[in-house]
């Protein structure tokens, strides 16, 4: 990875880490009470309140992983922290998506859901991890870059 890419990675993941940390702390506070739904952002843990504090702990860890990866970002162990943070977001967001898929297939009164009911299952609000998911995918570019560098013998 060249200097520009490294600099961009540092700034990008510092910002993403800070946002993840803020979301995580908000979820932790929310888990102590009833939770909250703010516009399209949902931190109510309505589906399963037992999961909310764990989600908060994971998100706070993600924030710390991203932030601690920023210094000397191109170094393999530092990059690994950002990769791990992204994987943790993929797990939590992936399960949130899976939960919607599982709930969208069976119908209330019929065996299978209607098309309207099916589509309505995917409507907002979404949990914070789902918002972070697309932004976390940037790490794939850096993984490819690292692989490329290894193949060409630059590392």
């Amino acid at each position, binding site marked *: 990875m060249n200097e520009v890419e490294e600099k961009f990675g540092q700034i990008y993941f510092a910002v993403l880490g800070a946002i993840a940390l803020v979301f995580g702390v908000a979820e932790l506070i929310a888990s102590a009470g009833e939770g909250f739904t703010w516009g399209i952002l949902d931190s109510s843990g309505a589906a399963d309140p037992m*999961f909310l504090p764990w989600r908060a702990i994971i998100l706070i860890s993600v924030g710390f992983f991203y932030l601690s990866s920023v210094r000397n970002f191109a170094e393999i162990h530092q990059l690994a922290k950002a990769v791990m943070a992204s994987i943790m977001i993929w797990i939590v967001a992936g399960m949130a998506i899976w939960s919607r898929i599982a709930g969208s297939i*069976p119908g209330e009164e019929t065996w299978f859901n209607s098309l309207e009911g099916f589509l309505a299952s995917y409507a907002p609000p979404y949990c914070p991890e789902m918002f972070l998911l697309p932004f976390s995918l940037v790490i794939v570019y850096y993984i490819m870059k690292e692989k490329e560098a290894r193949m060409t013998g630059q590392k």
Partner: protein
Amino acid sequence: MPLSVDERWDLIEKISKQTVEFGAYKHTLKDAIAELTVKPLTGIPVAIAVLYGFWSFFIDFAGTLFTDGFMVRLFDEHWLPWLQSVFPGGLGNPFYALMVDAGHWENGVLVASDNCFEAFGVLTSGFFVPFGVVLWAVLAFYLVFAILEDIGYLPRLAVLVDTVLHKIGLHGYAIVPTFLALGCNIPGVTATRPLETRKQRFMMITLLSVFVPCGAQIGIMQDLVPELMGWIFLTLAIGYLGFGFILNKIVPGRSPEIIMDVPPYRMPTLRNIGRKLWIRTSRFLLVAVPFVLLGCLIVGLMYLTGAMDWLATVLGPFLMGLFGVPGETVSPLIAGFLRKDLAVGVLGGLMERGIMTTFQVFTSVVLLCIYFPCLATFALMLKEESWKEFIGSIASLVVMVLVYGGLIHLVGIMLGVA
């Protein structure tokens, strides 16, 4: 002439010099990630995320999608009404009660059940428990387990929990039988074989058979008391570590180190996952289904002959006094000897009738988990342990149940919920 230890090491060095190429090794991204997952500071949050994913998938796959989404409807709205309409005898007939629906009394009138948890016939609950609930729970569990196993995460989890498990005389590898037992106690007990000493095996088998609920039981518990699952697992984990610590102090023998291979992370193959899933799930069903059917039959017969009421009357004061649970809990406890999942199902029937408070439900579920291994695990314990160890396991089990069950009741009284 045999070589001395020093001569062997010399020989090893000579061979390695000729065959191994030495040089600076640069860490790959995979190596760096592997390191992160075994260091406590970074590994614990990763383990929390993995277990979160594991549990979320389990609940949505087994609970939301299959059991609640399709199976409850299939069994309660189609299978049960169909059997109630075509099976000869009708409500009140002993054979009908055994096979389809025993019904229940409401204001002096015998009323037909409207769900398969309550019906408790061989053809209703006997089929609903293994095929409507347990199959999907076991399938979900073994799918994620196989993926974690093939990726190479499980040995890393073992390294991570090594320090904690050393405090109770076990080492990190104990996480593998524990995880396996969460699917079914039988492979869990079998997986204790690599443990080096009799002490470690005895401790591991005893702790598994008491404090680790199987996937079938977890599936039914999740269906009946989802809001209590966190508390139930916390109580079981405290029991596992607490009694493990005590056993380590009183059981004679050594707890030596074990060298474990930690493979690099790999992409799992669909073929391997599919094969493991098929082998484990089909074996599980072969063991589970006959016992569930037999359990339904025995519990049904005990109700019909009045044996269950007699036992509830005799054991009621003891159960109420020591554990704070009603005499009716005796029927799930008897069913639990055959299958724990079936026992929780029986408990579900009692809950539906509003016989117990929330704390009594919680205590009963924990008691069902710890009071005795199911018959299949019991038989395997006989095979895996010597007679002396087996009697030791059973004696420990009785003490653990009485002490821990009593303690839970005491905590409930102190908190004002019992």
